[in-house]
């Protein structure tokens, strides 16, 4: 009887797939950071209702939420070269489309997508910081930028942390779509490896296990971070190094 499910193959495939884990991680980390910064910007635009920018951001967020990420990747992959052609045509430049690495398209799409979803989370978190603290900071003579950076963001971050953790997990799994733009990360590699021996199921099981493990790691990291940021914990640590005791 032939082997129906080759469990040993699964474990021998995992190290081969892990070679491409850095690509997955790179896509995740860069998109998350860009998504957070842009999301913060969108959140502030929405909160402050800055004319023109506000309307643009509303349409942008609605569009991103209303279209599948796969379609967004297609749009980006096909649209950016088109824009470049236009630019070359009207400015008589000769930028080469092929000089843009494929990863670029994925990063742009994932960052924009992440920004749209994060902006709502960040906005809610910013609004949850009570006005009294802002007023106290202002009454000391701080500028809005200082109040935001020193008072509002540190507290809003703690509020948003669990939700942002979920969004990081979603993003990490979302990078599996990168093959659309011919970027080889772990999912694409699992298909390539399966193509060699036609053992598709084993290959997919291997890649699934890697995603699962990564997700668990992220969850743990978030829980750890939450604990570190807990006020009673922070206070204990600060008091330890102190000579003055109660």
């Amino acid at each position, binding site marked *: 009887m032939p082997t129906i499910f080759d469990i040993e193959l699964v474990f021998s495939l995992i190290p081969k797939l892990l070679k491409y884990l850095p690509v997955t991680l790179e896509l995740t980390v860069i998109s998350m950071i860009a998504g957070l910064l842009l999301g913060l910007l969108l959140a502030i635009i929405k909160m402050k209702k800055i004319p023109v920018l506000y309307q643009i951001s509303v349409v942008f967020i609605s569009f991103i939420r209303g279209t599948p990420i796969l379609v967004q990747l297609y749009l980006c992959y096909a649209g950016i070269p088109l824009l470049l052609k236009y630019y070359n045509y009207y400015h008589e430049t000769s930028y080469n489309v092929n000089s843009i690495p494929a990863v670029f398209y994925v990063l742009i799409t994932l960052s924009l997508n992440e920004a749209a979803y994060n902006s709502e989370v960040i906005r809610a978190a910013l609004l949850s910081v009570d006005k009294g603290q802002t007023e*106290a900071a202002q009454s*000391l003579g701080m500028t809005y930028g200082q109040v935001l950076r020193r008072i509002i963001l540190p507290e809003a971050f703690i509020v948003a942390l669990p939700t942002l953790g979920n969004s990081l997990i979603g993003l990490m799994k979302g990078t599996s779509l990168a093959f659309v733009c011919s970027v080889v990360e772990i999912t694409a590699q699992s298909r390539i490896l399966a193509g060699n021996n036609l053992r598709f199921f084993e290959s997919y099981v291997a890649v699934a296990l890697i995603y699962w493990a990564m997700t668990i790691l992220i969850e743990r990291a978030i829980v750890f971070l939450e604990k570190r940021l807990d006020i009673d914990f922070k206070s204990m640590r600060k008091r330890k190094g102190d000579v003055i005791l109660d």
Partner: protein
Amino acid sequence: MIEIRGLTKSFHPHTILNHIDLTIRTGEIVAVIGSSGAGKSTLLRSINLLEIPDKGTIKIGEVKVDIVKRTKAETLELRKRTAMVFQQFNLFRQKTALENVMEGLIIVKKIPKEDARKIAMLQLEKVGLIHRIHHYPKQLSGGQQQRVAIARALAMQPQLLLFDEPTSALDPELAGEVLDTIKKTAEEGNTMLLVSHEMSFVRKIATRVLVLDQGAIVEDGAREEVFSNPKSERTKQLLANYYRDRDPEFAI
């Protein structure tokens, strides 16, 4: 010296502040009394522009700000010259008592961290919380939180200290420790503008009493003058409650 001229604020159709003129000399402790809704808090919050009045001018020291023509820089300058203690304490929740006091020194006054730490420790010691410097606001009682807030305000060395009902959110037992701290602050020669419902406290520490009614100052005089010889009807009504409470219930 603080000079306020023609300060007006209205939330249509209500006039909250009606052409307030007020001069406070250095070292004066001015108490503002009046029923709720009289505009006491708005007056205080207008002085550091947490509330933007419709018109008027505010002059603190050399800085004179015309509300209508104010710039961002002027607003900040005015706020740097004042410090406020709030009814709800409004401490920074993610910072320890020490960090709360240091924050303004480092960020606004640009004092080096080590020096700021020394100043903050000194101020916290003065309010009797040197053993609580690494506690976060939620680990402190209401009274302790308000004392940290007072230390935070004092550390900035403002030309005018604003107290917005500093003990209203505290039960009487905890209010006592805060009132003692404010009294100490007053004795050190700080210029203060204080909104309070604690009449006996006002009578103890204020040098001057203002009575605010429907956005206007209806009485302004030295403490004893206002308490023992009020001129306006409104003041008499306000003080009637205070004197009634002070009368013994039984007399032999």
